[in-house]
């Protein structure tokens, strides 16, 4: 694969990740920030390279996995390297890596699988120089699909790890 093709793939993946995850990090039940509350985070201007919106939409906050796997594809590694360099530039952001699974598995196994995926991303970011103290992980198993349908395209989108940044 030549460099140009790779670059196009990365751009395509970033665009895909961005439209897959328009909500950024908020809107989850009791997510990290308070008991049972809904976290509210100012996302900022997506054109501002220091903003959360820029991270979510331009860098891309999501990587995807194959069935039952936590292996990082070359594409996923590229996204995570870009995430890491951004996170290293802006050390004021805290990081929560969410691991998710598709619905084609049992509930408990999927929680464990999501934990494995989130840990894999965490380990990759740490290897890229992001401070371990900034990163927490959580697994949602199959409880929070981003796409809802009983088809391959939804299962593919739902096997994911999302890097959620907050101040």
């Amino acid at each position, binding site marked *: 694969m030549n460099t140009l093709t790779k670059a196009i793939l990365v751009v395509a993946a970033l665009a895909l990740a961005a439209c897959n995850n328009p909500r950024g990090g908020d809107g*989850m039940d*009791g*997510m990290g920030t*308070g008991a049972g509350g809904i976290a509210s985070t100012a996302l900022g201007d997506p054109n501002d390279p220091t903003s959360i919106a820029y991270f979510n939409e331009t860098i891309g906050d999501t990587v995807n996995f194959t069935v039952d796997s936590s292996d990082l594809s070359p594409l996923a590694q590229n996204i995570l390297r870009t995430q890491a360099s951004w996170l290293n530039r802006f050390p004021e952001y805290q990081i929560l890596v969410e691991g998710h699974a598709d619905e084609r598995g049992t509930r*408990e196994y999927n929680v464990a699988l999501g934990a494995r995926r989130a840990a894999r991303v*965490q380990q990759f970011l740490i290897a890229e120089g992001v401070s371990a103290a900034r990163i*927490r992980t*959580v697994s949602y198993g199959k409880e929070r*699909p981003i796409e809802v349908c009983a088809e391959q395209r939804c299962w593919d989108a739902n096997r994911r790890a999302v890097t959620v940044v907050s101040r």
Partner: protein
Amino acid sequence: MTDLSRRPLLGLLAGAAIAPRMALAQQPLRIEITEGVIEPVPYAIPDFVPENGAGGEYGAQIARVIANNLSGTGLLREIPASAHVGRITSFDSPVQFADWRAINARALVTGAVRANGQQLSVKFRLFDVVSGQQLGDGLQLDGQTNAWRRIAHRVSDQIYMRLTGETGYFDSRVVFIAESGPRNARRKQVAMMDQDGDGVQFLTDGSALAFAPRFSPTGDRILFTSYETGFPRIYLMDVASRRRQVIGDQPGEMTFAPRFSPDGGTVVYSLSVDGRTDLYMLNLASGQRWQLTTTDAIDTAPSFAPNGQQICFESDRTGASQIYTMNVQGGQAYRISQGQGRYSTPVWSPRGDMIAFTKQHNGRFHIGVMRTDGSNERLLTASYLDEGPTWSPNGRVIMFTREEPGTDPSLMSVDITGRNLRRIPTPGPASDPSWSPLLP
């Protein structure tokens, strides 16, 4: 909603004046479940006779609850009242068996109800219509009026036992997850109901995602996993007071998949840290915890054997998930699932002789049972997504979650023979059932 658990039955009293009839030479009616009943046995259960004015409102309702239980087993088929020729107008008058033979009833349940203030007395008798024999003694159950459903369930358990020779399962409850809202932001509340779907109570308010509640061996406590703090953690709840506490984790850990030991004193569960998921035990009295498995793999969904000496669980240590058993002290785990596909959520039967599981194979999900050494695997169901079996208190019926494409999940039950697949009524979408023992 009345909380019946706070107003238990006063007791189970045999009616002193009710004597068993002389046994006739003929074989009494007996339903052999193990040999497989294909044709349900026809029976009649007229409204219970009110013995005073206040008893009137209960006579029909109690008979309906019992009929729903009995017919729901798939072993019996009710002959509707509209087809009855005979009438039961007095509990103690001789039964005119010819009237019940005329409509081809094999069994007949008669009963009477008397209410005094808060007190309810229910009497019943069970007859083999063909031989004209009474099956067992007449029995009187006394309780409070607001426990009338529980009395009806206890009568149902008595009838079931007399007909099949096995303990019943009707006076029991189910905890489950009541679901609502959009699929990508689902609201999931811990809820509890009678095994027939009546009397739903919500145990959590739904502000935090919760899943997989599990009853204690005495039915007075539950374990479940909730995201109240944003991370999956195990909660122990006292059902009567609704008080709950977090158990079993330390900062940076995720805990889930808890189950009680048979003595209720220990919890086995999964703990994830750094992407590894291992099994742990926690002594509830001392708070001491210890690690059972130490693989890099996913070890989850543990369940105790009823003797408390072994657990079964699933692990992907050799690739796709399989079912293993091991001693509660830890040590070597033995793989018992041998077929093709992925095996998950093993649950030991209350009788100790079988393990129910979820199997994923060729894009379908199944609920199945196997012997505890992995032999005699039988798949009972198949669908887009069947998962999470739980045993009835007598080990005869399995309840589980079913989801078909584009539809909400619901609770289903199936006999361990694979027959009598039924949907359990719930107010809305429901998942993750856990069956209580028979209530004390």
